[in-house]
């Protein structure tokens, strides 16, 4: 009898500890190395370009005009409210991912933010949390996979959703399945949550209209430009929490965090020739020294 009880207790402890141990094992590998800002892997470029053409026509025919209409019909304060509600609804998903990343500080930041905005902020309509120093800190399962050590893979252009990577596309699928809201909200309320999310996107499209239009319409190659902007910005986001920068001239930043700088430091290797021709390998260092000769 005591033996069975002991086995029971052991399995109870194990089932509680195992996921944590697995997580610890995963995170022990450390985050994946971030490729430098200008490195691009795009194995399915032809297909991605086809999807991009589809997205462009969708934006021209539907999303652009709908966002324009939404922006001109709905006044700014209400639009911001909808955007706030949409952001607040995705907050639980951020918290779950923060926990999976074992970033406890971020998880408590996002939990506090969610609590403040859901109560004082009237269900997320307002965003008093930001004023209290609890600014938005978004995350997703793609980042969780990065923290677990998964490299980004190839660049992928998703229909409707836009630029992504192999890893982050998986992340989107998992995020949709994992979203706590899906499990908590009554079935009948879910379409409202989705609608708020879509309206929030329309609001973003409207507010950033000029910037988006300039990239999509004025670029020589909008696909290449979008790909470059997305990858650079995504890698910046994944660079993790900001370092404590010092203003006294101490060079702690780049050495302390290899992910803070998207460019490989040509001086990292003491035997590397500092005067090597940067033009011969444009990706080793983005800056060509015009005074080298």
């Amino acid at each position, binding site marked *: 009898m005591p033996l069975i009880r002991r086995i029971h207790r052991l399995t109870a402890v194990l089932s509680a500890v195992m996921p944590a141990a697995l997580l610890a094992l995963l995170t022990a590998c450390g985050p994946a190395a971030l490729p430098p*800002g*200008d490195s691009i892997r795009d194995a399915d470029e032809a297909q991605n370009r086809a999807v991009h053409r589809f997205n462009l026509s969708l934006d021209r025919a539907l999303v652009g005009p709908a966002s324009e209409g939404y922006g001109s019909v709905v006044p700014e304060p209400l639009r911001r409210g909808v955007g706030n509600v949409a952001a607040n609804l995705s907050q639980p998903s951020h918290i779950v991912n923060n926990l999976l990343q074992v970033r406890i500080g971020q998880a408590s930041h996002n939990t506090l933010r969610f609590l403040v905005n859901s109560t004082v902020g009237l269900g997320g309509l307002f965003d008093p949390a930001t004023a209290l120093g609890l600014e938005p800190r978004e995350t997703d399962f793609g980042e969780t996979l990065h923290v677990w050590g998964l490299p980004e893979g190839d660049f992928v252009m998703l229909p409707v959703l836009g630029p992504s990577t192999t890893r982050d596309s998986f992340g989107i699928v998992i995020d949709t399945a994992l979203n706590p809201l899906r499990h908590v909200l009554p079935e009948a309320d879910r379409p409202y949550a989705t609608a708020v999310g879509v309206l929030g996107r329309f609001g973003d499209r409207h507010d950033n209209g000029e910037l988006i239009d300039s990239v999509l319409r004025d*670029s*020589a190659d909008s696909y*290449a430009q979008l790909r470059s902007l997305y990858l*650079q*910005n995504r890698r*910046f986001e994944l660079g993790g929490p900001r370092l404590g920068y010092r203003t006294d001239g101490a060079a702690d930043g780049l050495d302390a965090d290899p992910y803070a700088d998207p460019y490989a430091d040509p001086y990292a290797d003491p035997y590397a020739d500092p005067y090597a021709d940067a033009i011969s390998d444009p990706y080793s260092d*983005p*800056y060509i020294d015009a005074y080298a000769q």
Partner: protein
Amino acid sequence: MPSDIRPTRRTLVTTALAGLALPLVPRGAAALTTATASGLVEQVAAEITRIINSGQSEAAMIRDFERMMGRYGDMPTIAQSVLGPPARSASRAQLSAFADAFRGYMARKYGRRFREFIGGTVAVEGAQDGGRFIEVISNVRIPGRAPFEVRFRVWDRSGSPLFIDMLIEGVSLVISERSEVGSIMDRNGGSVDATIEALRRLG
């Protein structure tokens, strides 16, 4: 042990040349500090704010902006970095024409969006040594928008501290424009001259 430790003619010549050239190396090279670079960013931010709030016409603002880029930007370095590998086979005249065309293109492309920054402030938050350059980290606040991070990269290879890049939320101007200029060049059959011509009209 290497049997021959006598200097070859080539090493002799290089050493002599290096010795001759040494006094020509700009002294500023060792003097560039994070404080100097931060000061430069603050100075430029103040000047841009003045241009934006001057109330002058867009064309005049773009002209002012282009002049500023010439004064504070290391245009030869930026232009060559943006041009990438084709810079290697380009002539000196082509490089300089490209740098000028690119400067005008940048001024028009970004100068036109200046009014989005009205009321904005730039706060320098710190600076770090990036090896070949100093990176100044700043926080930009524009009314009605979430604050965002802008990093400025400064070096003094030319003899005085100048900007070589600007990164907005991790997006480097040099890297983005290299992609864009590469596309323009592809469209023009890989010709540097045609690309320069195209840049003069664009932006």
